[in-house]
């Protein structure tokens, strides 16, 4: 088996090595939603004489599982995109090396969840219910002010959520309800189910197919999405409207704050460059480029937000309070029992 | 019983059959003769209901068949390449038509075994048809067509793919079966030997119409048309020119014959060997003597085939030498 492995590897290596040798290469594993401006990366590459190669590795869960499987011979040097719902699994699997970046000085301590600095916060975003302004105006309907309101008959069939087993905003939203209701969250979901909540598997389907304010013109005026989505709706309109067509419900406890982390993968090849890249991700330059590329908020407090964010994006007043340790130990059981209830 | 009335059909926009009319009587076997591509098979397909005339009618016992689909016509059709069902064995192939008519199983078994005997294939019941020889396959096809006792049998060059001796055997078998069963039949071929052997009546298809419709011996005597003579291999055809009322000129001399054409016109003549040397000196209409230069002599069993200059072929009891000039008594007829 070993021999075959070796043979294959060398064969493929020859294939892969066709490109001419240049500067050193730094490989960064990311989830599929990662995006960055070209000039920002180029600046980093020139400064450090390095080629940065990004590997899009699926959604967050998929990426993490791939990284864990390849722990002994990591696919990349740096991994970005693990969030606080997956953080504990990453830490348990011990895939990161610790690195206390000096750039953390500009980052508030509330974001630094791992005190041993294996995973460093890069950005955050609030998962909240987004609603279709026009629908509520036209139907003279008041906004739900709490989770309990959503189970009321006037909101029957108006909300679409994602399955927490297959979607990270879906998981985030479920965790918010768990934080709010405690163990009674399953009863709450039972009442939501009776009130016609629609469950789909992914954010794409929920937003583009079911949500009424998106281009999909779907049937539900409320969708679980991000607090920054209204800003994206303005930014990605072919003729920017004066006001966003959607808004988020940011009432206390109704949003879940996702924080995304970067870490240096164990057994990687370029420790120095990897550290530099982590510093770079926390730098003002990268942090200011991030919002419009990924529609998330910078953790670096010195970073300026783009205008579309300050104008249209909302920040949760009081995000749900739930520790990542709690998430870590119960995550799978919660998802299983949620699925039992919603079946 | 079967009648085609002014049937017209074109193929890919070109006229194929311009005006076809003929009848087939009960118990009669007719032979449809024509060059390949002349539309013989199309006529069969139309009679079978697999194709449709553009104009004209096909009638069975004076009833128009136009509205009757092929499976209700009760006709049998035998193809040159058999068209046996590859997924069925010999028995099931023959039984097919009976099953379609919901004949009881016992009766089917009985009928099939009778038929197998009739076509000399007893014991072949469970053989795969793909494992049979060409002749055997054609016997199965024949038995299959006979099984439901059709009102009419049609053969589309059924022996074309077989070798000579097999052909003769099978031809005689078919003949015997047709006579015994009295099923009227239409037999399509381009082989004159088959036609003469099997037909009660021969129909010659040429350029979209039936130009000749008569008993074999009559056609042999009076082919009337160059096309018929050529197709049936009757005598020699030579070019001629009318030079007066009763005289035509050819490269073999001038003959006294009235072709009812205008002077100066080109015609074709049929030169047949004189049937018998009797009545020497007494010349009937069209009898003449011509001189031929021998080009080649072939031995043909009991006689010699002599090829002469000008493309004439005659038969003689004794072999002449090449380049000899011989004198032969012939019968000359006008063709149109």
């Amino acid at each position: 088996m070993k021999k075959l492995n070796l043979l294959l590897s060398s064969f493929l290596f020859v294939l892969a090595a066709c490109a001419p040798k240049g500067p050193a290469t730094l490989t960064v594993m990311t989830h599929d939603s990662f995006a960055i401006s070209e000039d920002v990366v180029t600046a980093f590459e020139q400064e450090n004489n390095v080629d940065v190669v990004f590997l899009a590795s699926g959604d967050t869960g998929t990426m993490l599982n791939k990284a864990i499987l390849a722990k002994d011979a990591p696919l990349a040097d740096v991994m970005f995109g693990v969030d606080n719902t997956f953080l504990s699994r990453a830490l348990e699997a011990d895939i990161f090396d610790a690195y206390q970046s000096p750039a953390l000085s500009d980052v508030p301590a509330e974001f630094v969840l791992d005190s041993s600095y294996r995973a460093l916060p890069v950005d955050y975003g609030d998962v909240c219910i987004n609603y279709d302004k026009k629908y509520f105006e036209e139907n003279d309907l008041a906004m739900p002010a709490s989770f309990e309101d959503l189970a009321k008959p006037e909101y029957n069939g108006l909300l679409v959520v994602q399955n927490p087993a297959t979607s990270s905003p879906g998981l985030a939203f479920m965790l918010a309800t768990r934080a709010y209701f405690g163990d009674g969250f399953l009863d709450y979901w039972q009442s939501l189910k009776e009130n016609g909540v629609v469950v789909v598997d992914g954010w794409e389907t929920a937003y583009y197919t079911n949500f009424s304010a998106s281009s999909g013109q779907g049937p539900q005026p409320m969708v679980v999405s991000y607090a920054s989505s209204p800003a994206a709706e303005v930014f990605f309109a072919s003729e920017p409207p004066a006001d966003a067509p959607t808004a988020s419900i940011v009432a206390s406890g109704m949003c879940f704050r996702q924080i995304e982390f970067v870490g240096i993968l164990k057994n990687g090849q370029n420790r120095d460059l990897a550290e530099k890249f982590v510093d770079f991700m926390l730098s003002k330059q990268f942090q200011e480029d991030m919002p419009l590329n990924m529609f998330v908020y910078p953790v670096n407090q010195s970073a300026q937000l783009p205008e579309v964010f300050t104008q249209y994006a909302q920040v949760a007043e009081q995000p749900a309070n739930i520790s990542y340790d709690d998430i870590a130990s119960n995550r799978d059981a919660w998802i299983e029992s949620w699925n039992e209830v919603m079946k | 019983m079967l009648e085609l009335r002014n049937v017209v059909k074109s193929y890919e926009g070109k006229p194929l059959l311009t005006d076809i009319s003929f009848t087939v009587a009960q118990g009669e076997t007719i032979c449809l003769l024509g060059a390949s591509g002349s539309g013989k098979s199309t006529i069969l397909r139309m009679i079978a209901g697999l194709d449709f005339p553009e104009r004209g009618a096909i009638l069975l016992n004076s009833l128009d068949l136009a509205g009757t689909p092929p499976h209700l016509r009760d006709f049998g059709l035998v193809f040159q390449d058999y068209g046996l069902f590859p997924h069925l064995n010999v028995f099931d192939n023959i039984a097919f038509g009976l099953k379609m008519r919901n004949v009881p199983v016992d009766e089917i078994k009985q009928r099939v075994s009778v038929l197998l005997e009739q076509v000399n294939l007893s014991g072949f019941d469970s053989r795969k048809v793909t494992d049979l020889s060409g002749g055997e396959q054609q016997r199965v096809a024949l038995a299959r067509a006979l099984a439901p006792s059709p009102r009419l049998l049609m053969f589309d060059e059924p022996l074309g793919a077989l070798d000579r001796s097999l052909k003769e055997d099978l031809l005689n078998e078919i003949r015997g079966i047709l006579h015994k069963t009295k099923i009227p039949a239409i037999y399509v071929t381009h082989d004159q030997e088959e036609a003469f052997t099997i037909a009660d009546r021969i129909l010659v298809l040429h350029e979209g119409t039936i130009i000749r419709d008569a008993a074999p011996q009559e056609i042999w005597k009076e082919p009337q048309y160059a096309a018929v003579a050529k197709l049936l291999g009757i005598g020699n055809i030579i070019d001629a020119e009318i030079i007066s009322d009763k005289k035509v000129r050819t490269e073999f001399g001038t003959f006294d014959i009235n072709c009812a054409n205008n002077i100066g016109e080109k015609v074709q003549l049929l030169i047949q060997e004189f049937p018998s040397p009797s009545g020497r000196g007494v010349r009937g209409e069209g009898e003449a003597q011509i001189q031929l230069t021998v080009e080649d002599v072939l031995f043909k069993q009991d006689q010699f085939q002599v090829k002469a200059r000008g493309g004439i072929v005659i038969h003689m009891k004794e072999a002449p030498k090449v380049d000899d000039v011989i004198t032969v008594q012939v019968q000359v007829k006008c063709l149109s």
Partner: protein
Amino acid sequence: MNLSPALSTKTRSYLSANSRILFWIPTLLFLFSFFFFPLFKILALTFNFETLADFDNLLVARDSLLFTFYQAALSTLLTFALGLPAAILFAKFNFPGKSLLRALTAVPFMLPTVVVAAAFNSLLGERGLFATTFDLLLSTFDLQPSTFNFILILIAHTFYNTSIVIRIVGNAISRLDPKLESSARVLGADTFHVWKDVILPILRPSLLAAALLVFMFDFTSFGVILLLGGSQFATLEVEIYIRALQLPNLNLAALLSVIQLIFTLVFSILYSRTINQVSTQTAPRFSASRPPKTLRERLFVFTGYWILLTFFLLPLLSLPIRSFTRLEADRGQRTEVQYGFTTDYYEELFINRRGSLFYVPPVQAALNSLGFAGITVILSLALGYPAAYALAKPTRLEKFLDPFLMLPLGASAVMMGLGFILSFGRLIASPFFIPIAHTLIALPFVIRTLQPALASIPERLRQAASTLGASPLRVWQAVDFPILSRATLSAATFAFTVSLGEFGATLLITRPEYPTIPIAISRFLSQPGGLNYGQAMAMATVLMLLTTLSILLIEKLRFNNAGEL
């Protein structure tokens, strides 16, 4: 052909036992390296028999297996209900717009699931064109919304797979000796009996082949089910995905994928047995399609034409329509939605608004897609030809190996992706892996398309050519190639189409610098905003045009080629 098969194979295998192995080497090497090896790696790590001892695990396995069978069987039935008449239509009749319609039916096969789901939702969804019709149906039969989703899944499977039936069965129908039908009719069989007793039995191998492929695709369907139904419709593949990547229980995922593999193997074995048993008397060139003549034929062609056109064109048309229609909420200024014609989305495709590193011009994405598809075609033909040659005259070796060729179709893409990571590590980021992965899926099609054509070449022709002094290469050029060129084109189309539409993001790690069109589409769809949605539709339209054009081109080549023969 008339030689006793036992005798001919015996002598053949005796004569060329050694050289036969040579035929298999490239294909087997490829399959071992890129299929069995990664599969073994991941299963060795994750599969253990203790998983079997857990009753809950067995329950999950049983439920997902039953549901998988249920939906695959229904989908296959529905696909045949549409595909069989369509195959007859294309094989037997000529009518205006035939090649366009034919190409149209093949387009869905190549579209990524995100696009098809979007198309179906814009048509049948609650605000779609036919929403009222479906509402009526639902209320008349008192159906649950989940039943509606289930129906959508079945329809989408039909939409995807009908072209398989058209291709495989249609091919066989057009090669059927028309005299068989004539004989049966004259012998008293009506249309029903002609089909029941003659045509269908003769078509059995091709029907089985088509049914097997369709069933296998439905059996392992993944994207369609997740997007149109959701994970409540837990097929094996969906369950594997959830257990492997979302709820980390790799052991259960391994168990499920072993079950899936076993069933695929069973289907493959059944399939190869059947196809080797049934000898078909189909001639190579009977493709006598003609204009419809009788009233019934005209009616059949007319209704068939319109049903197919509606079924395939409407969902496909909804994409270009959406790509040119502004449907953006604009409620800040007015209370109306902005409707109207726009080319903004296309123009936007060429603008890198955010200066993003991962922005790729649409032309580049198209070129990437075409490039990968081209390599896939070459690779799968190069590997498929020798195997198909060996399979054309099967010996015991081939009978044993045959079913394994189909296995990649039934292996879980998720587990394969993980296996690749374990086996190849960093090398997986090489762009070469994309066509390799596509070839894995295309290869079974290619072999299955080439094999019958190769088997149909009479050995006598080859012998005649070689006695006339032709070298083996010249024999191949003069005899095999002309007969094979049609099959080769079909096989190439298959490989090409599989590659163009293959999303493969779950299977592999991708380099964002080399996105294919499907990947570009999914990137657009992953962010909110009307412009993103519009660009996704525009990109999908580009993919659709590209695929339709390639198919038309191939159909044309095929036609010209058939004319030469």
